[in-house]
């Protein structure tokens, strides 16, 4: 899966490394901005009160 991604990327190794880092950064940004807040909303809330 990730091996295939590495082979699809063009250019020499240094360029591929930069591209991979960019892809990882984009993925982390999307996760932190949209995915995790959404997941947080559908998970069971953390209860801190006595009731």
């Amino acid at each position, binding site marked *: 899966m*990730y091996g*295939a991604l590495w082979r699809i990327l063009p250019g020499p190794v240094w360029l591929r490394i930069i591209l991979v880092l960019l892809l990882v950064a984009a993925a982390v940004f999307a*996760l932190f901005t949209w995915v995790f807040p959404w997941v*947080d909303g559908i998970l069971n*809330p*953390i209860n*801190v009160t006595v*009731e």
Partner: protein
Amino acid sequence: MSESHPEARRERRSAHGRRNRVSVVGVLGELLLTAGVLILMFLGWQLWWNDAIMAGQQSSAASERSSEWLEQARETQGETPPPAPADYGEPVVDATDYGNGDPFAVMYVPRFGEDSQRNIAEGYGLDVLNSFDLGVGHYPDTQMPGEVGNFAIAAHRSAYGGGMHEIEQLQLGDAIYIQTKDGWYTYRFRDFEYVTPETVDVLAPVPHHPELAAADRIVTLTSCNPLFSTAERIIAYGVLESWQPGSAGPPAEIAETVATWGN
């Protein structure tokens, strides 16, 4: 050695072929690893990243409200505060009927660290506790700041700004400052209690004795326990020590800190 060459090349080629082939187990393994990384990242987001962002926003929202009240008190009283009397008398109790989510006080506990000031709003739903500008919720059926009985509030221990993250650090006599539009209420931390989540008696005017009429003015902080778990609740009690109106400014011990909130 020369005759083994073609064989070696063939082996190398087949090994390469194996690597190129996408195997079900290989993909499954990579998916599982990815899932593990995603879960760790989510925990990092929830307990560190989002927690820090919310903590910053909650404390600056509280600073803003605190400064506004100070400003209002200054305007009504003029620039020079009246000479402080020896005793400000009975604490003023806010009789306003606040709706769910309405902020009416600011909590500041120096032991909780710098920028630990938080808005206190009516109600203890997620709209208050997980809010970007509130963070601490008041149990609606309990008393108000300064009132005889129990002023009971709740906040997160971890994540969502963690308004009571350092609650277990409290030491006997630590100050718990509650500021309202009327003034400052100084409570002193008395003791801890560890209870099950169903122990609502801690909210009674006399904790654990709902049948008794209250004589003391106490504050009750509730949060989850242990840290990162919701199995139990940690309860911190404080007793009202003093009260001073907004025109008298913040209590002397925190005057410098409070002055920085306005900037």
